[in-house]
């Protein structure tokens, strides 16, 4: 199988299918629960009165775990299978960026379970999520004798990674609370764009993983849109939680594995684009989605184009 075929299968088709199947299961779960609600209330939104019942939004946990499974499948097919190191070492993560997968799952589970069971107790679950984000930063930072020259960057980038995970997760969850559950995965997708560019320019293996996260999110988003077109909604938007860790960790990986000096504003957009979009959305959050979505899209496209111009378009177009 050629490299292109391997990447398409491992980083596009399989992750999209797995995430889509789990998102569909989430919708199925929501419909089953809703059919038992005497008032027919929608369990998909955490601000719904019925959402305080954990059972109703537990489907969101299914979607988040499914998204993580999709990412694990991509990691397994491209990094674990055929690895010449020991099985345990391979699965734990030979390269620092590969170790991100475990705290990513933890982060996704902590926030999705919290959003499902205790939607009104954000402080405590975000505090716990902050700890898992710190763990993710600790595990993702490349360390060792050969990285000693990069030690001065560790403290600031650890802080940035934790801040990115929490700010983006909060932004996306608050977007859902303001009737944005059907399009918040699109904001996450926009958030992947700059980390994808940064990694693709420097280190292909994590770039493939970002590609897998895009595919998994597209798969989940497609199912969410399909369910919405049938008048049903689900808590599958919770796939955004683990996605926030991918944004932060892959941006940090790109920073540590590059030998080029990219502007700080590029890293800022890479780390915080979902939060930036939510910030722009705040003044108009009570308005119709017909205004909010185009505004969010314009902001996202503008920021992505600025990064693309800085990283790619202003450089020679030769493909190496």
């Amino acid at each position, binding site marked *: 199988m*050629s*490299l*292109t075929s391997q990447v398409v299968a491992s980083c596009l088709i399989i992750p999209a299918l797995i995430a889509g199947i789990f998102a569909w299961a989430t919708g199925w779960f929501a419909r089953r629960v809703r059919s038992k609600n005497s008032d027919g209330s929608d369990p998909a939104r955490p601000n719904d009165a019925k959402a305080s019942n954990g059972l109703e939004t537990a489907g969101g946990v299914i979607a988040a775990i499914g998204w993580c499974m999709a990412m694990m499948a991509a990691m397994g097919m491209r990094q674990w299978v*055929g690895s*010449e190191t020991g099985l345990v070492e391979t699965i734990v993560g030979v*390269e620092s960026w590969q170790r991100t997968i475990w705290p990513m799952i933890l982060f996704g589970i902590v926030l999705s379970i919290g959003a499902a069971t205790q939607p009104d107790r954000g402080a405590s679950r975000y505090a716990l999520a902050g700890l898992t984000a710190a763990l993710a930063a600790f595990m993702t930072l*490349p360390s060792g004798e*050969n*990285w000693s020259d990069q030690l001065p960057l560790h403290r600031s980038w650890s802080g940035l990674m934790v801040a990115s995970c929490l700010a983006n997760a909060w932004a996306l969850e608050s977007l859902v609370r303001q009737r944005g559950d059907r399009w918040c995965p699109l904001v996450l997708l926009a958030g992947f764009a700059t980390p994808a560019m940064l990694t693709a*320019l*420097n*280190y*292909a*293996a994590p770039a493939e993983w970002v590609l897998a996260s895009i595919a998994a999110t597209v798969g989940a988003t497609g199912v969410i849109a399909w369910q919405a077109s049938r008048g049903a909604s689900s808590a599958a938007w919770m796939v955004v939680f683990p996605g926030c860790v991918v944004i932060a960790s892959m941006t940090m990986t790109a920073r540590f*594995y*590059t*030998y*080029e000096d990219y502007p700080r504003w590029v890293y800022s957009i890479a780390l915080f684009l979902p939060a930036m979009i939510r910030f722009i959305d705040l003044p108009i959050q009570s308005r119709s989605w017909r205004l909010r979505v185009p505004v969010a899209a314009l902001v996202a496209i503008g920021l992505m184009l600025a990064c693309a111009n800085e990283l790619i378009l202003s*450089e*020679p177009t*030769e493909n*190496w």
Partner: protein
Amino acid sequence: MRSFVKSLAVFAVAGLSAVAGNSVAKADGLQLDSANSKIEFVGTKPGGSHDGGFKDFTASATIDPANPLSGTLSIEIDSTSLWSDHPKLTNHLKNPDFFDVRKFPKISFKSTEMMPGESAGAGMVKGEMTMLGKTNEVEFPVTCAVDGTTCTLTGEFKIDRTKWGMNYGQGKVDNDVSIKATLAFKM
């Protein structure tokens, strides 16, 4: 003198996988002319190729003109000195997809056997090349051209990068990498 040149050709070829840039190697009175020595590689892909090389290395050599086949050569490359014809490619080549220079900052070669060639000034060298933490045997020919007080040894050969675990991009980037080394020794 003919025997001497032949022996020189034999030992110097062992450095083919490593010699470049600013290094200096002494071999029983012979000194590598770093300004005129270089090691380069050519990576190919369907429809294109890129040039690259290493700027820094160290080398040590021994040679006995009376018994040229007993000569040895050890070379160590600073893999972080890697360069290529495209800055972004250089960036990518340094990362774990290819040379992983953070984890493996050295590439080394140590000769194990010198063999005479069929003509004067030609020889074969066999040795162990360590890259990405893996050691494989390589064998390659060398030729020597004498010009005044300078003996220039040139060798070209190919290695299969996947033997050292450099597996990324198979199908997009050819496995065989051409190496061309030019070693200039002051006699």
